[in-house]
């Protein structure tokens, strides 16, 4: 075939250079290869891309191997070439034109998609300036600023000021974002109602809001003695710190005044108190200083106070390890046999004669009649009981005599002198027996074993008993919380032979375990409030007194 190849090179402004070549060949090889008849010098073209073959005016283009060619825009591996046919090979377009005479095939070749190597290698700002990859700094800052102002300032302020807005935004809870911490458990019912306490904007919570509910709260000190004006409930009762309402409970709060209490209250009888571990005074139990009165006084254990209970009770004899002989056999007593805790477990129930002592100490007085007992009561009552028992004996004897010698005395008639004498004799007998028995009963082996008894002209008397139900009036001690400690570790009852012994442990015993609010590593932490209650005064707090 005779073929003409027009290589068109476009220049700027659309001008074209045409490089014309005539060939006489059996086939036109198209490719990147230097030996190809139609040499397409572009890396996007295959070495051997396609071939054009044919004769007698019938020519076809055929892709080599799996190379891709487009014939009139259609991907085909083979296509007929007629004038007007366009074949795309890579970035080139081959156009078949009407051949001039003497030429079988005229093909115009043009690079229609030039490869811009410069553009491919350009360093763009896209690569270098990372701001292109990010939203604008100002846009981000302004947008999110507005979001913060709207959500955390505007919305809560509106909700705080307008109950209507608060109600409308209830589900959204805009004020929750202002909450500085969880509210205490006791105040949870008003947790969602901020304005229950926070009434005025930019004003601290006032006492009136507290007293609106806590109307019965009493003053914490005598308002006549101390200036309580200006004190705020909130100074000591802190909210928004979690489940527990924070209340001032540190020792410093108490010792702030009590370490030098005399300077605050010159007339006080209280001792100065510092930290428990080193500056708490020895305990001062309330004891009977004079049983006659009785006169009570707080006496330091350092002064070795004595009990003046008007009782005799040697603990050591009752706690003998080998046991005691009792009406029901040998029994070894423990503390719990006599001392039983009250229902709360904090203190001990009073020891009762009937319940505790009486199981061993029967109140008999007559050897012949061991089941005769007197009541644990007043001397008159005892005497009546004894006299009654002996009278029964006397009357019984008289009845025996009467049965042997029946005498028909009619009602209203006077006794015979003989009978009268007999009765006087019986009465005298009963009186004598009773006096004997009273002496036995109230003597050293009877009541006097435990009680202080004395015989007065008018009869036997027992001195009144003074047993404290609580020695520590100013503190509370909970036995129930100390059950892991044996009684004897605090109370030296085992070796006490006298009821005058005050079997109270001193402060050093407590310090063996308790170390105050800043304890050493091996001590239990205990604050003032572990034993002492915060003082309250009888007068109620009134808002007007404390709020400026």
């Amino acid at each position, binding site marked *: 075939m005779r073929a003409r190849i027009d290589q068109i090179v476009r220049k700027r402004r659309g001008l074209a250079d045409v490089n014309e070549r005539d060939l006489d060949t059996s086939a036109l090889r198209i490719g*990147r*290869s*230097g030996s190809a008849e139609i040499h397409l*010098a572009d*890396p*996007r073209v*295959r*070495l051997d891309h396609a071939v054009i073959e044919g004769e007698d005016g019938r020519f076809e283009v055929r892709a080599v191997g799996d190379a891709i060619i487009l014939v009139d825009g259609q991907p085909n591996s083979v296509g007929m070439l007629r004038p007007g046919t366009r074949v795309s090979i890579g970035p080139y377009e081959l156009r078949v034109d009407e051949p001039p005479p003497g030429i079988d095939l005229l093909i115009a070749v043009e690079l229609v998609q030039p*490869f811009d*190597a*410069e553009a*491919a*290698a*350009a*360093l*763009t700002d*896209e*690569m*270098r300036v*990372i*701001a292109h*990859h*990010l939203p604008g*700094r100002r846009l*981000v*800052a*302004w947008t*999110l*600023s507005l979001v*913060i*102002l709207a959500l*955390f*300032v505007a919305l*809560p*302020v509106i909700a*705080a000021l307008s109950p209507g807005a608060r109600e409308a935004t209830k589900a959204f809870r805009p004020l*929750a*974002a*202002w*909450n*500085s*911490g*969880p509210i205490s458990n006791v105040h949870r019912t008003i947790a969602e109602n*901020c304005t229950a306490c*926070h009434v005025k*904007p*930019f*004003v*601290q*919570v006032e006492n009136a809001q507290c007293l609106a509910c806590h109307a019965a709260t009493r003053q914490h000190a005598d308002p006549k003695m101390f200036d309580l004006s200006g004190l705020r409930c909130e100074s000591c009762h*802190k909210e928004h*710190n*979690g489940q527990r309402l*924070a*209340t*001032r*409970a*540190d020792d*410093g*709060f108490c010792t702030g005044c009590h370490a030098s209490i005399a300077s605050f209250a010159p007339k006080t009888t209280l001792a100065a108190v510092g930290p428990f571990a080193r500056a708490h005074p020895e305990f001062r139990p309330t004891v009977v200083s004079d049983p006659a009165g009785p006169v009570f006084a707080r006496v330091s254990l350092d002064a070795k106070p004595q009990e003046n209970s008007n009782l005799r009770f040697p603990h050591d004899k009752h706690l003998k390890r080998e046991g005691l002989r009792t009406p029901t056999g040998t029994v070894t007593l423990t503390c719990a046999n006599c001392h039983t805790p009250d229902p709360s477990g904090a203190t001990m129930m009073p020891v009762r004669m009937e319940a505790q002592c009486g199981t061993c100490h029967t109140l008999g007085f007559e050897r012949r009649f061991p089941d005769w007992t007197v009541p644990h009561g007043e001397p008159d009552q005892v005497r009546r009981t004894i006299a009654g028992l002996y009278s029964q004996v006397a009357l019984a004897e008289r009845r025996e005599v009467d049965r042997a010698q029946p005498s028909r005395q009619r009602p209203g008639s006077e006794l015979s002198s003989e009978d009268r004498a007999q009765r006087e004799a019986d009465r005298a007998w009963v009186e004598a027996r009773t006096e004997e028995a009273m002496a036995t009963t109230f003597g050293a082996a009877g009541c006097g074993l435990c009680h202080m008894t004395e015989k007065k002209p008018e009869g036997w008397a027992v001195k009144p008993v003074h047993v404290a139900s609580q020695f520590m009036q100013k503190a509370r001690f909970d036995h129930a919380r100390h059950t892991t400690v044996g009684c004897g570790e605090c109370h030296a009852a085992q070796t006490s032979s006298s009821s005058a012994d005050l079997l109270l442990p001193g402060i050093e015993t407590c310090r063996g375990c308790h170390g105050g609010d800043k304890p050493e590593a091996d001590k239990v932490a205990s604050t003032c409030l572990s034993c002492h209650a915060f003082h309250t005064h009888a007068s109620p707090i009134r808002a007007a007194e404390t709020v400026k």
Partner: protein
Amino acid sequence: MHESFLTYRGFLFLKVASLAGILAVALYMGHAPMDAPNGGTWLGYGLGTVSVFLIFWLAWFGVRKRRYSGVKPLRGWLSAHVYLGSALLVLATLHTGFQFGWNVHTLAYGLMLLVIASGIFGTVAYARLPRLVADNRGRRTLEAMVAEISSLDREARQAAMALDDKVNAMVFAASEKLQLGGSLWRILSGREPACRTSACIAHLESLPTKGGIGPEEGAILGTLVRLLYRKRELLHRARLDLRYQALLDIWLHIHIPATVLLIVALVAHVVAVFFFW
């Protein structure tokens, strides 16, 4: 000798900041409020007040820096900004009393953490990266590297023109597009997992060394491989350069907007606290 902002006046501001931090910690340790430690105790208010003034002063640096009228260098200011900004972390954290929640208060604290963290990142970047950048560039600019890559591409395309289609296609694909940059993460990683140049080299290396290759073609192949090795090296350095530039830049894109948001959240925090005092 050049004095960096970190060593300014014998670590003057590091000492000041450390002193402030230690003082704050000491006060906090000795502080035993009746409630838990929080922003509302005397120490809490104190630390909060100091922190808020510190934040405004630190933010003022951003304004100060943009004023070019002064000729005095800002090295001292920067030194104070960096060290006192780090001290803020201690002061503000103690101010919180470690009470955090889903509220505006913790929002402000979180934004402050973001600002400080990005600032620390920036400090480390400025302290370490310039040397790495210089070492990596080796007295060339990025433009020079790209220009060289471009000419290497041209030569490689030329060399591949006579080679088989697979090689030619791979060389072309590698030169068709400058595989630099891309997404932000791509830039920050400094890597190109789908590097066509590397793929091309891998293919050439996998070709059998003997048989079927004429001496002429072998010589071309050898040239091509050398060109591509050089290109790969340059690409690697260019990517690292972009990575370093991005690292030097990116923290500010967090630091500055977060500072603006911090100030706004701080205002909201103060309003919230005192509105419901």
